């Protein structure tokens, strides 16, 4: 698949990575590259996130947190998207260093 996103192998903390099923977009550290596994939310917001390209397989990276820690800014499919931690928690991801 053509990704508009490329990655550095960004050195991650030497902690054991969480089990893939437990890692959500909200728990991703800044700058870490990941892939979406599933969108677990329901309803209009989950649909909107997916329509905006947050679908399983899509590479994502957390760019920034807003001054008070929320919302977060992520890069997906070459553009920047702001979403709150509550929504980010419904998106499960797996770390990737593609």
């Amino acid at each position, binding site marked *: 698949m*053509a990704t508009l996103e490329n990655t550095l192998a960004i050195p991650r903390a030497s902690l054991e990575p969480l089990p893939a099923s437990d890692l959500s977009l909200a728990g991703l550290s800044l700058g870490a590259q990941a892939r979406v596994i599933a969108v677990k939310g329901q309803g209009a*917001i989950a649909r909107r996130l*997916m329509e905006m390209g947050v679908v399983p397989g899509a590479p994502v990276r957390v760019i920034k947190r807003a001054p008070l820690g929320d*919302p977060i*800014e992520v890069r997906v499919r070459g553009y920047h998207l702001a979403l709150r931690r509550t929504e980010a928690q419904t998106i499960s991801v797996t770390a990737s260093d593609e």
Partner: protein
Amino acid sequence: MSSTLESPALASPPSAASTVARPLVIALAGNPNAGKTTLFNALTGLRQKVANYPGVTVERKEGTWSIKHGATPARLIDLPGLYSLDAASIDEQIARDVVTGRIPNLPAPDVIVAVVDATNLERNLYLVTQLLEYGRPLVIALTMVDLARKRDLEIDEQRLSEALGVTIVPVTSAQRLGLDALAAAVLKAAESEAASAGGWCLSELAEREIATLIGKDVDSLSRHRALRDLYTDELPENEWRRDAIRLARERLAQSNPDWWQEPVLARYDWIEKITSKSVKSSLSQSLTTTERIDRILTHRFFGPLILIAVLLLVFQTIFSWANLPMDLIDKGFGRLGGAVGSLMSPGLLRDLLVDGVIAGVGGVLVFLPQILLLFFFISILEDTGYMARAAFLMDRLMRSVGLHGKAFMPLMSSFACAIPGIMATRTIENPKDRLATIMIAPFMSCSARLPVYTLMIAAFFPGRKLFGFLSVGALLIMAMYLLGIIVAIGVAWVLKRTILKAPTPPLVLELPPYRVPNVLTILQMMFSRAWLFLKRAGTVILAISIILWALATFPRSPQTKTANSETTVAQTTDDGGETESSEAEVKTAPGFAGQSSEHLSQSFAGRAGHLIEPIIKPLGFDWKMGVALISSFAARETMVSTLSIIYNVGHDKDSSSNSLINAVREAKKPDGTPAWTPLVALSMMVFFVLAMQCMSTVAIVRRETNSWRWPLFMIAYMTVLAYIASFITYQGGRLLGFS
């Protein structure tokens, strides 16, 4: 081609169709920030009109596009910015209705031009996959091509076009590159068959359900209709079809709990397959310019500071830059009033023109430069992409009072005018969040309050500086804006915990790349808003000015009445006599000038002012201000024109020495003390920050909430708050020893 196009029965009457070909109808669709507005402006120039779609407040922008030399220009419809055609937002429904030709007096588009941002191809193509399903001829206008190249994105347009089955025309709207090619492609597409329906399909199970649904439909409609019924929240009205859909959904859910995600996944799969063959991105790791800028502008410490600085700069600039043109307009109207006053023979008609029309409308038109500047800045903030960053920075705070980060933009636009702001709340999906935003939007100091603030500041806090460069006036204005914001936050907090209780709304917001603002877009925005303002000045404010003048003139004072009853030629004698007695002074029009305040006092307006004087006295206001307040409940800016009428400003020959500012400063109470003091002015400003004084806003809230309950509630609670705050300001100020 337009000249050969047969007019179908829908639109134009047959007689017209036989002689003049129906103009081509072309719809412009695209994601927000894809460059759609810039392209629309480049194609239409400023030949466009803005209205609303019937029954809703979604803005309908239409322009004419001279698509072919010598042929009938095409009608270009600018759809609202969309990420998808599926979700239930009103914008998306309207876009769908336009595409399927269900808007009255608007035939289905002959061609759809999809605006696709080359730097954001995958997400932009999502909308294209949906447009393809509607089976209308489609052309892609590919924007931001140069930017994509800079980011080392190589797009093989030929292959992309073949894979999608759609002609692709790269355009650079700002330099007007590719517009002719786009016109040619659109004309060609209008003659040809519809584009292919797209190359994606669902799982076998889902496809079978779709096929059954298509077969079951009595109107035997298309695939896109069946897809929409099956996968969106909008169920068809037909009951047994509803049941069929419900059953189909249950069957799908049994085999896959995430069955509803399938079309989205399938579309993205197809898009990825296509882009993998037509897009190459080399492995550059450099930060984009936008990311570099955002390192500072959304920095956790500098970001909020910069936001405050930006707002301060905007207000400071509006004040210093607008001064010169405002003076010119002021003097112009003063001269006009003087000229008309000296040319016409004295009488009611002259008074109506000079005191009613010229003073009233002139007093409001003075603020045109400020309104132009405000919209200049707002459109720059929007067009550069900074507005979305402001929402990003503010979301946490907005959320703590239960509002949505998306409410930030409607609230920001409400600084220009609450009406577009309230209209912009349509992007907020949850009705309760939307209502809460609507209810506090009028607290944002709109441009109609600026005239009042400016007058008060120019009269009572002129020219003072803090630290040598910050004017006290600018700081006061900022304080007024802040007061509105703080009260709005408090009210939202209360509303969200009482009558509008609901879980915290989610936020999904694109942070578009920073862009150099487009001059045409900004000009278009400035002038369309200025035009709206002028139209208001020309109609509503003119009407109110005349009514006010009449209310302030009639019934004529007792002395006049006695004179009238005693002589048969009452009117002329009376007026003639008055003019003779004060030949040099033009000021003696009945019912107005300083010395004839007795007349005003006896008039309808004066009586109303007297009636409410006991109520507003604790706020520091006298009955003349009461008259101005009453009139300002129709529209805030009429406060200024009313004061012009009350203090008889338009009537003076020498306007430079005797403007409204001086009139306000010199106004006296019956006991000879000044009617206005800095404290009264402050109290007045505070009242204007909080009171609901705009009939147009009330009307729009009525329309948006579809009931009288909310607008009436709004008027009541805002006015009570305004009274309390003004009371505290005035009485508190007196306790502190100010007068």
